[in-house]
């Protein structure tokens, strides 16, 4: 963007101003993209959940009810802004902003398409995690500043949930860090080129005879410091197809559900128990701000899950188009952006689906689930990820002579790694599920049991 602006306005403006304008423009574009998606998500959620409940959903405003979010927005704008008399005015006012701002900041580092990256931050994954943790402060402020028991209770629940689910989420993302050998989000889609399960390990035998439509230059298969190679590239080497990536994706997605306060983890705003949680005392635009924050958080988390595990913008045809060069590169970029958007929306559909299917968890179930199931699985997964990297890339010297895979072709090593990690992960999943089961009837100690009143 900076370069384009430089070429347009050239020397008319000082360079720093051009940089500033470019950043502002990119920010605006990303924010509008997110808000546009938010609008569509609100509409889609209502329509889809309605169909799941054998209803039609909003279909009056505009074609198929598409303008319903606009109508809602108008309603929100024109509503009275009510601040409870004993509320802490400033905290009450700032809370929605503090909740929304970090969520919007998360969008800055996501690569939205091939070459469409707002910011290249080399600690992007950590940045996303850090920034998403900040919104907890906003929730706490909302709960405390409202001077309302329900709000405070909701805020405490929300923050407790956010903090405890951050740990499995971060641990699952660590898998990606191990696989990628870095925390930059930009490299992740490039590393997920190739074919399912095997990744970019099926190399071109004869560099001259490989069609650029099927083969592309891959600088590294996961984390490898090797020379660039020509590998078969269908844009499908997503990590979710490997055992490590699959388990990591599951854990991360579940944790993301909890962080985004989606059903079945919508305990903080359980409307049947505590009205609307921390949003109880909010109305009008402030409420809308929370609402937007929640949906954009879901959007960003879906984007992160898609980028980290589902190949991001990677998809069939992107590499081929990019290899054709010239204007096709832009077509490839557009196609890749579409792929990412499609993945985000599929994940969002799953979120709606889960909301349609499952009831809300209790708080203790929620905590049990995070600490007794997700976290052990994620920890085991990190071990698997390390093994995966070691088996595919380390030389026998790095292994200290324990394992010698130097003579194998990349695809053979990949296959071995996939098998080993699959065994480890499946065994671990069975074991952890088994020890988490309720005690069998034969093992009941009747003194310990309490019959619910």
């Amino acid at each position: 963007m900076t370069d384009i602006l430089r070429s347009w306005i050239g020397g008319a403006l000082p360079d720093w101003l051009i940089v500033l304008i470019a950043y502002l423009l990119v920010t605006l574009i990303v924010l509008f993209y997110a808000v546009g998606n938010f609008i569509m998500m609100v509409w889609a959620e209502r329509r889809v959940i309605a169909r799941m409940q054998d209803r039609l959903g909003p279909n009056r405003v505009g074609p198929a009810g598409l303008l319903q979010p606009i109508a809602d927005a108008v309603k929100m704008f024109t509503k009275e802004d009510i601040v409870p008399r004993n509320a802490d005015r400033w905290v009450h006012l700032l809370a929605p902003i503090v909740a929304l701002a970090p969520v919007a900041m998360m969008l800055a580092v996501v690569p939205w398409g091939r070459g469409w990256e707002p910011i290249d931050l080399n600690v992007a994954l950590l940045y996303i995690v850090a920034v998403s943790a900040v919104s907890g402060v906003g929730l706490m402020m909302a709960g405390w500043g409202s001077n309302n028991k329900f709000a405070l209770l909701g805020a405490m629940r929300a923050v407790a949930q956010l903090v405890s689910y951050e740990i499995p989420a971060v641990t699952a993302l660590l898998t990606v860090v191990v696989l990628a050998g870095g925390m930059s989000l930009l490299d992740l889609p490039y590393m997920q080129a190739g074919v399912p399960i095997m990744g970019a390990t099926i190399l071109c035998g004869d560099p001259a005879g490989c069609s650029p439509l099927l083969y592309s230059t891959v600088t590294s298969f996961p984390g490898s410091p090797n020379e660039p190679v020509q590998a078969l590239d269908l844009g499908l080497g997503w990590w979710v197809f490997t055992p490590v990536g699959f388990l990591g994706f599951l854990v991360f997605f579940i944790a993301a559900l909890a962080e985004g306060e989606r059903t079945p983890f919508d305990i903080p705003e359980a409307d049947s128990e505590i009205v609307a949680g921390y949003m109880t005392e909010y109305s009008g635009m402030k409420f809308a701000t929370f609402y937007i924050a929640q949906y954009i958080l879901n959007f960003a988390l879906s984007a992160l899950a898609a980028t980290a595990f589902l190949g991001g913008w990677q998809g069939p045809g992107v590499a081929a188009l990019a290899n054709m060069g010239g204007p096709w590169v832009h077509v490839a970029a557009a196609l890749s952006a579409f792929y990412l958007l499609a993945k985000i929306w599929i994940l969002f559909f799953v979120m709606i689906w889960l909301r349609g299917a499952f009831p809300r968890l209790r708080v203790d179930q929620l905590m049990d689930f995070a600490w007794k199931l997700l976290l052990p699985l994620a920890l085991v997964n990190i071990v698997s990820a390390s093994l995966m990297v070691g088996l595919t890339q380390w030389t026998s010297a790095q292994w200290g002579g324990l394992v010698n895979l130097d003579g194998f072709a990349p695809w053979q090593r990949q296959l071995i790694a996939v098998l080993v990690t699959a065994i480890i992960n499946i065994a671990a999943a069975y074991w952890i599920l088994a020890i988490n089961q309720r005690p069998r009837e034969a093992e009941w100690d009747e003194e310990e049991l309490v019959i619910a009143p």
Partner: protein
Amino acid sequence: MNTLITVLFLIFAAIILASAIMTVTVKNIVHAALWLISSFFGVGALYLLMEAEFLGVAQVLIYVGAVSILILFAIMLTRDLEGSQNRQLTPRWWIALIVPAALFSLLIVPTVMTHAWQLPPPPPAGQPPAISGAQQIGAAFMREYLLPFEVAAILLTVAMIGAIVVAFEERERRRRVLTLAEQVRLRQRQQQRQQPAPRPEPAATAVQPSEATGSET
């Protein structure tokens, strides 16, 4: 460009100091904690300005995302104390003011200003200075700082266990609430125990409401 950085530094410094002063002076302890968060943010931004990206992000993650949330939780678990009637400062707070003020004006500023700092020579033009990032930090932790790293890990574990032990609220009994199915199963078992010789017809095992209340025993 340098002016921009200077201005940014001054802004961040102002945010940090103003927030810190508010933190130690406001009456409402929740507000103090919120001002502290603002100060943490300023420090994080300063780290980014000093090109310590990893540290800046870690600052936000740990201080803002964890420590301040912990503090807010603690405040809210020990409520009714931030009432404005309560004096927030000790009776001899002016002594507490004199000591840091003296420390700052008599010791820190003269030392910092007069000391001859041996700054490394600026790198040759057009070549950015080599700045260590996240990867170097990771490598350092695994090599020369392995022992401190492990100690830190143990410290964190100890802190976690300690925090749980200290704050643990002992209940009379840890109990598990049965699901309805389990409750039914339990009834059946108790029933079987009460009737060691089960009657032949299965209908007899059906529990009548009056029996189930335990009047038989």
